[in-house]
């Protein structure tokens, strides 16, 4: 009863079944005239490992981006995602990667006040924008944003891996809507998956922060 296997090109790392958005993404990069090591992308990795040993055909370029209110100079590959730049080149590891496919929201950052999945945007495209990560939502000297304070008080995080994304989504919501309803908070967090299921406590915290902000 042996079944015939039709192809050995199936890529269990996701290139066949899980590549819809990624393929478009790569096409976009290629259309820009830069063919980076596509294998790296196809297998679901952005280029970890700092410059100097990039695949043939690509080159890093020094650019300046504004992150958390500071101008940062950084060597960036043409195909480099913002999440990668933040985590691996600027040391901002608060931004998490849960899927690297724009599905989970763990990598949520603000770009000019709007929440974006930083795994699915190229660093080159934010050169003229203000990027805010979880490290930048509070005040200076370690002062917490009211959303963060309320999340501590409400014991909102469980494993904590989605928490930075939830924080950024909550802060962005309060910036555009200082007094949201519970329903508005739920919709603002709809792109942030939490497998631990701490949703209620995140909403409680953001509503509480709105009251105290």
């Amino acid at each position, binding site marked *: 009863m042996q079944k015939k296997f039709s192809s050995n090109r199936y890529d269990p790392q996701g290139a066949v079944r899980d590549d819809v958005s990624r393929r478009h993404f790569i096409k976009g990069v290629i259309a820009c005239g830069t063919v980076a090591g596509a294998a790296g992308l196809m297998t679901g990795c952005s280029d970890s490992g700092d410059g100097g040993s990039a695949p043939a055909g690509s080159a890093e370029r020094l650019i300046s981006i504004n992150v958390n209110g500071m101008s940062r100079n950084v060597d960036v590959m043409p195909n480099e995602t913002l999440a990668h730049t933040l985590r691996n080149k600027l040391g901002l590891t608060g931004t998490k990667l849960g899927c690297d496919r724009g599905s989970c929201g763990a990598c949520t950052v603000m770009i000019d006040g709007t929440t974006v999945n930083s795994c699915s945007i190229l660093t080159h495209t934010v050169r003229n924008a203000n990027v805010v990560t979880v490290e930048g939502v509070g005040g200076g000297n370690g002062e917490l944003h009211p959303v963060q304070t309320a*999340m501590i008080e409400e014991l909102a995080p469980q494993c904590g891996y989605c928490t930075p994304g939830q924080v950024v989504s909550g802060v962005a919501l309060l910036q555009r809507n200082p007094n949201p309803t519970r329903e508005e908070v739920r919709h603002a967090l709809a792109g942030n998956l939490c497998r631990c299921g701490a949703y209620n406590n995140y909403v409680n915290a953001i509503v509480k922060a709105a009251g105290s902000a």
Partner: protein
Amino acid sequence: MADYNLIGKDFTPQDVRPKVTGTGKYSEDFKKDGMCYMKMLLCPMPSANVTNLDASEALAMPGVLGVLTADEVPAVDEPGYPMLTNKPRQLGMPICAIAAETESIAAEALERIRVAYEPQPFVLDPLESLYPGGPNALDSGNVTGGGEGNPPIHTRKWTARDFAEAGEDRLPMGEAPVEWSVGDVEAAFAEAALVIDEPFVTASSTHQALEPRSVLAYWENGKCFIHGSSQSQSWMMPGLARMMDVSLDDIVYIAEYCGGGFGAKASPYPIQGMAGYMAKKIGRPVMMRVTRAEEYHLGGTRPGFQGQVKLGFNANGKMIAADLYIVQSGGPNRGSGDYSSAAGALALVYTPTNMRFRGAAVVTNKPWHVSQRGPGQNQLATVVEPLMDRAAKELGIDRVAIRDLNAPEADVVFTESQSTVTSMYLKEAYKLGAEKFNWEEKKAMSGQRNGSKVIGVGVGSAYHSAGSNGFDGLISIRPDGKLYVHSGVGNLGTYSYAGTCRAAAEVLGCSWENTVVLRGDSRHGLPWTLAQFGSNSTFTNTRTNFVAATKAKEMLQRLAAMDLGGEPGDYEVANEAVTNTSDSSKTMTFAQAGQRAIELGGEWDGTEYPDNLNDVTKAALKNVTGSGLVATAKDELFKEGSVPGMAAAFCMIELDTDTGKYEILEMHSIADCGTVLHPQGLQQQLRGGAVMGIGEAALDRMIYDPQNGLCATVGLYQTKPPSILDVPTLIETDAVNQPDPQNPFGVKGIGEPAMGCAASALLSAISDATGTYFNRTPVDPDMIINALSGRPQSFTPLQVNV
């Protein structure tokens, strides 16, 4: 109830702030000088023999540092799970790994490795493997574990007659590897006023922790350092030492944060070792970032069930007979005992006076299968709870009343091994839940229609054995005047590592501000304890910290008497000091005691320790000895019987009969977890468990293409966990708060039943709204629409991968 300073009070665990600021470091957040990157070559088909592997072209690439093959790592016998293998028996099983200066180079190098595969027969459906002449997933057989005299894996085939007699609508029931019975089941069915006999399927589903299991490994001075993603800490040590072939002293394990595990990161898993072997081979720190898609192959899967359940009730609604047969679908590995645990849950939660269980755990060429939150008990809850509703309706009994009638008392004796429990308050949970939810009023709303929408009301429950014993406690009181509680518990996100440390502070009358929890890094000296699984930490580690703190108290009293005069009994320990009760000038602060213990050495500072400690604790003591007054003890307190974590949930939904979709209007979850240790933590577990339970009932499943054995669920959007919009705005929680007599503080665990009770309450509500018992999880809107419009479902009753 006892009056405690810390037990039962809320507090802020030390790892909450780093979580909200993003400074908490998960394994992928670490960097090490000289760090390189590794990627795995995964098998592209469900079963194959690798006949040739040529990495020469890959190794010639600039930036490639090395390849690691199966020949260079420990061999594992079936049904163990290999680190690397030339006989992959699962889609996505690792064959070799490449290390390179960057991840892109590693990935590109993988494509240049030439592998010749010889495809092998494969099987995805356990029943196909049990069919005469059906394929075995492993070379050594198709059935694992369980049953007296059975080897760990062997071959078992049923007869064609077994299958023919069953037809499409019943589980074929050939000879079972595991079987037990209590009472006379056949006679009881003959007497029953109502018999329900149904086939069922619960889908295999995946844990989907949000953090993929990335690992960083390196070697320094002969020690292997591993930064891992795991829900356990000390439990990882012996397995990692064996895996890396070094002594316990030469493993440094760092896992301060873990982005979710749900059972799949409980014990050392083979790919953790891979980075260690590569690091040793190439002499560089190795980071392996695991992708989301890889997580579906290597991240663990809950075993699915195909089964038949027959329940007999008398006219009052008492379950007098139960006959359960479960065929468990595993991966190409030993898997977990879900099927046996499910039988135990049926025996305990519904107390059938006569019961028979038969089961078979069948291996398939699907991913690594491992326990998931409530392994067995939660699947069982989703199968039986809706049938309890059906029995209630057919016998004209209230649905809560029939559960209450069948619920166990504290003197329950269950299963063939005549198990007992340490405490039992399920009836109280039903009562409290019915009050809070306002069951009578809600029940009256059942079936109310508003246009195309109809109200459904449900109730469910679940059980898990939630506590263990026999592990070690370790505390130190240091010259800085602080109490250090060494915790070997992992950080799954439940905060029970912290809650249980409060037990030590409670015993010693020490303020929480002056208590330091040491955890997350074996260099702190962390004692042996069970993995953070099975809802056990709360019960297990309040006991270990109680015995260690009790010993510290006795040592402090003896030390004070020795130095200050009088008898040890003249002294009391409180406020970070030991003081003579009749002469308060005779006092020694924690700081002084810690200093004095260091001077004395011997039994005082950890140089001498009890012989009955586990080797992990003994190794840990090497990092603690001489730091202050060191007290360590093994938990030898009395324990007999299962420690039952029990939960009941109530749920109301509004179901749209046009679309099959529904909104959960209300959900209440009530715990019997003994004395509440940490109210916020409990609320969080009940809510989080309910959310995951909604996933179990309605969303979670792994799907395989039967022709090629490929996986169709390798993205979060393909097997979506519940999002915030899938769950109620506010899940209400409460607890019966009755102490368990076998814990010094009365506490026991709850994390797992929190999921099963909500899953079964939701299914109960869906059945209430639709009048259909689906006998399957997950129930999706298509199935609801088919049922409501009288169309047949698109699958047969025992079909899997749908």
